[in-house]
């Protein structure tokens, strides 16, 4: 999921990444909506609110909403600064660090919420800000490494694409286009799992409260370790004690994986 970059990614890679991260984003968004009465991933709505608050002259609220939008932007910025600078030398690490930072943010929200949260407005504003930063990190990572194919924290663009593709599929020539079908499948999966994540979060929140953020962390850990285990697996077989799996079996055709495995072996 995280090892490959841009055009070297297959549809399956993007679906795996999209499904798990969309599930996490759906969970976070609904959790913050239930707990804090604020969305943490759909920034378009925050822009509308920002305009409304400016028009009303509520400068404190303008500052709060502006800082939320700014942190979402900064999350995207952070992810891509890391990816751009370390992608060629430490691919897996460069793609993992944004996820690790996201886990840290959400873990902090979960911990603070469980043990220290007094439900003051300032606490609410800061915790929502952390969630927006986390969603920015995730969106920046998935969009960047998938060549903008996977965006999982909001569905405006995805719904637009689904509408466009549905219209295109009324013509046979487009229906038979594998690339377009793949794109439709990917977006449909993202939308579906975002919804499932949201519903799941809404259901479990009433039983586990703030621990819902730990559940999100868990799904992100799966994203991290799925590839880590594959790299270890590959490195193990590269030591040359017996059976060597086919390249197709472990999807190691790209340079990034070979480089990572070589580094680990060294």
């Amino acid at each position, binding site marked *: 999921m995280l090892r490959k970059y841009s055009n070297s990614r297959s549809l399956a890679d993007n679906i795996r990444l999209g499904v798990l991260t969309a599930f996490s984003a759906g969970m976070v968004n609904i959790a913050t909506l239930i707990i804090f*009465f*604020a969305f943490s991933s759909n920034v378009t709505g925050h822009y509308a609110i920002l305009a409304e608050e400016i028009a009303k002259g509520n*400068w404190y*609220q303008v*500052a709060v909403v*502006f800082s939320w939008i*700014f942190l979402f932007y900064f999350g995207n910025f952070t992810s891509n600064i890391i990816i751009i600078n370390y992608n060629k030398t430490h691919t897996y690490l460069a793609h993992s660090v944004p996820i690790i930072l996201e886990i840290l943010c959400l873990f902090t929200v979960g911990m603070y919420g469980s043990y220290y949260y007094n439900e003051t*407005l300032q606490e*609410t504003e800061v915790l929502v800000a952390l969630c927006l930063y986390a969603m920015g990190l995730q969106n920046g990572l998935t969009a960047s490494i998938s060549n903008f194919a996977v965006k999982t924290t909001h569905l405006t663009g995805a719904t637009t694409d689904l509408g466009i593709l549905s219209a295109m599929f009324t013509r046979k020539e487009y229906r038979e286009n594998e690339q377009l079908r793949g794109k439709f499948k990917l977006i449909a999966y993202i939308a579906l799992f975002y919804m499932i994540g949201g519903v799941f979060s809404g259901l479990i929140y009433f039983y586990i409260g703030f621990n819902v953020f730990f559940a999100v962390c868990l799904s992100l850990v799966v994203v991290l370790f799925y590839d880590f285990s594959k790299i270890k697996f590959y490195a193990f077989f590269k030591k040359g004690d017996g059976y060597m799996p086919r390249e197709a079996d472990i999807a190691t055709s790209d340079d990034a994986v070979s480089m990572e495995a070589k580094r680990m072996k060294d």
Partner: protein
Amino acid sequence: MKFHYILALVLMTGIVSILFMLNVGTRHEEIIVGAWKEIKWTYEGAEDKEDTLLRAEALKSLRSIIGQDFLIHENETWIFTPEGQLITSTKPTENDMRLRWLLKGRGNILVIKNGDIPIESYNITKLNDEILVLSFNVEIGAKGVAELTFERIRL
């Protein structure tokens, strides 16, 4: 290199603007503290009807039906204490003493809790030194938005 300076300048401007607005703006959590007397109650579903005696009666009965499920009673006075307690009566009962108020979102949602259990939430449509307007969704036959307008009083 020029771009780096521009980016740094934009980021710094953004941060300074946020800090400035946080300082000059007034926080809902502070303004809402005090005593508020209900002065008006409106229901959007009834706004376009002619202002007749019959309508006034209908609104009154509608209000009492909605009031059964909400805190609102007749000519209510709400006192928001700085400690987070909400007093809705001049002679509070033991139950009244358990009511807490919280603000959520960006300070636009008023949540009322009984102990630790959330019982109601209202949208804060307007809040300044003199006026507090709360709105909430009701579903009685047809959906609509009810609005409660309060005026600050000095006790």
